[in-house]
């Protein structure tokens, strides 16, 4: 038996290469001293075995990295002598690839948006450089517009995807509540998706040949910076409130329609503080000014997390929106598309009936401005991880959300008004 083993190993070793593809790590549990002795007799060098834990005593497991070309021989040997084992690592190369990706993550300067790591959460600097790279790589399709400055003086940037002048537009914003990290993470992926699919996907190409898409990835940069530096759970802006030691205004309670109602708080220390006055927050005012001066936005999609919901107006009143039937049916379709990918269950309906009464919210204002297809998304999950959604869910979330966004954009394109 041993002779056969050696011969096989020699034969295969001649054709070996320097890769760990298909290599496995086995954990062998010898049952008695005789089995330990047998293991010790295995020709390590010839087989290319690398013991992580060498055979010594019966009570200790034997961990061994077995190259792919020796696997069959080693497993046959173990089976023949009835030595129990199980596979600890199915493919060593996979593990090394993972590690390599982890290391790439910590590279400070990806050189292109193909180099960028979409499977991790980024900080403001990294997101800003992503936007600049995307524009540089796709300058015929994407430009960056500054629509204003935050309270602390940060630029409020919007990516404009456009193939022609004087087009009606579709608006998407993420990150208005700074702790909702999954939202800008999804937006980054979506931005890359748009430039990749333009000219390839007929539906998106048709949309972009008729509409501009505006994407504000970080609508609240001061809050976002604060979630990195001080408090991961920060939601509001960072503007001080005179007469109070509490900072910040809820940028999704600061809008004109329904302002100051019971679905917001008048307490500056509250997470839903509506602010001293309508549009008092520069982050909100910048969007208001943009919407008014553009004048031809036809869909407005404001993206939040968490709860897995697709919501339409109103939040401040239970009076149904004039277009409720159409908005409801479109929501149903968009949610059905979303769910088709990873079976993620979403709820949909008006804000006030589905999640809670909320006064002075973005989409109530945009709807009243005449932007019929005004929706708020609440992305994954439903409370298990909440705001701290594991990074491995970024791409699945972005992918499924994209299907819902496409459904709404496609409907907007096909139903001009």
């Amino acid at each position, binding site marked *: 038996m041993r002779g056969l083993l050696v011969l096989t190993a020699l034969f295969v070793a001649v054709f070996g290469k320097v890769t760990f593809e298909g290599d496995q790590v086995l954990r062998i549990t010898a049952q008695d001293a005789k089995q330990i002795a047998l293991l010790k007799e295995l020709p390590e060098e010839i087989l290319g075995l690398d013991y992580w834990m060498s055979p010594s005593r019966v009570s200790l497991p034997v961990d061994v990295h077995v190259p792919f070309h020796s696997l069959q021989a080693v497993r046959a040997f173990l089976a023949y002598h009835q030595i129990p084992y199980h596979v600890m690592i199915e493919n060593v190369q996979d593990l090394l690839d993972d590690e390599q990706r982890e290391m790439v993550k910590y590279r400070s300067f990806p050189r292109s948006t193909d180099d960028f790591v979409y499977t991790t959460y980024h900080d403001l600097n990294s997101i800003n450089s992503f936007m600049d790279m995307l524009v540089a790589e796709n300058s015929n399709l994407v430009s960056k517009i500054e629509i204003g400055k935050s309270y602390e003086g940060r630029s409020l940037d919007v990516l404009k995807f456009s193939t022609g002048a004087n087009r009606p537009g579709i608006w998407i914003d993420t990150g208005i509540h700074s702790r909702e990290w999954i939202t800008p993470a999804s937006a980054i992926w979506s931005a890359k998706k748009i430039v990749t699919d333009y000219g390839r996907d007929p539906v998106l190409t048709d949309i972009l040949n008729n509409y501009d898409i505006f994407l504000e990835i970080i609508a609240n940069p001061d809050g976002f910076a604060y*979630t990195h530096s001080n408090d*991961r759970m920060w939601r509001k802006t960072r503007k001080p409130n005179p007469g109070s*030691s509490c900072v910040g205004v809820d940028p999704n309670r600061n809008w004109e329609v329904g302002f100051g109602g019971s679905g917001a708080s008048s307490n500056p*220390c509250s997470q839903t503080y509506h602010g001293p006055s309508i549009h008092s927050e520069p982050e909100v005012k910048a969007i208001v000014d943009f919407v008014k001066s553009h004048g031809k936005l036809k869909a407005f999609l404001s993206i939040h997390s968490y709860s897995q919901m697709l919501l339409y107006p109103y939040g401040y009143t239970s009076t149904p929106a004039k277009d409720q039937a159409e908005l409801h049916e479109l929501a149903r379709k968009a949610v059905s598309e979303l769910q088709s990918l990873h079976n993620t269950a979403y709820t949909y309906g008006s804000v006030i009936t589905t*999640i809670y009464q909320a006064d002075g919210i973005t989409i109530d204002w945009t709807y009243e401005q005449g932007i019929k297809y005004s929706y708020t998304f609440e992305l994954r999950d*439903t*409370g*298990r991880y909440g705001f701290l959604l*594991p990074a491995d869910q970024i791409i699945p979330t972005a992918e499924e959300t994209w299907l819902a966004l496409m459904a709404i954009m496609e409907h907007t394109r096909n139903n001009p008004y």
Partner: protein
Amino acid sequence: MASTGDLEPTHYPARRAAQVALHYLNTHHGSPFRVFGLQQVHKASAEDVEAGGRKYKLDFSVTDWASGSAGPALRCSADVLFPRTERHSAPDVKLRCEALQQINRTAQEEEAFYQKHITPDSAVSARDIPDSYGNMSEEMQPFWRLARVAASFIMLRESSENTEFNMAQVASVTQQESSEEQLMLEFVVLLHDLPSQEIVQWKLLASWSPDRGVRVLQTEWQPRCPHATKPPN
């Protein structure tokens, strides 16, 4: 603005009541290897009762987060009574779930976990579980689940028709000495209330053993910053 009669199962009145039933379920059946989450509300109704409370009748399904995507859904029904008193008092829950008794497949893991940490020199101490990026080590998972179960006692107690609690993060876990064959753990947990969007911090002392389950011995609300708001109730 209360709804009586049949409720839309996916909307918040039914969902909040179902979440209360979930908190109750976890206080009774949660462990380091079992935490239940709401999967879906199938049917719900509400009615006013004497003494001014409101009772919700619910038909819903739950899944065990610890069994990953492989886990089956359990069907449950519950009556959740929110009392109407001057000062807040905890909701009352009557709950029935099918096949609960049959779930003892975690007994081995629980025993191994217990033995590993009941030793005198075990002194587990950790912060921010999960971390800002949602990362949580394998080793910390059972402690996260224990915190989630212990937090369920607080979330159940603090719930009303106007709250919807989840545990946002375990700020810290510190193992305490114990002379009673119970794991003793001090947790600081951050709870998130959806309607108010507030993050509420609680320190709590909990014990656990495979035999006795989770018990919460002390709870203390903690301010998060000098002028933090009090909890919703």
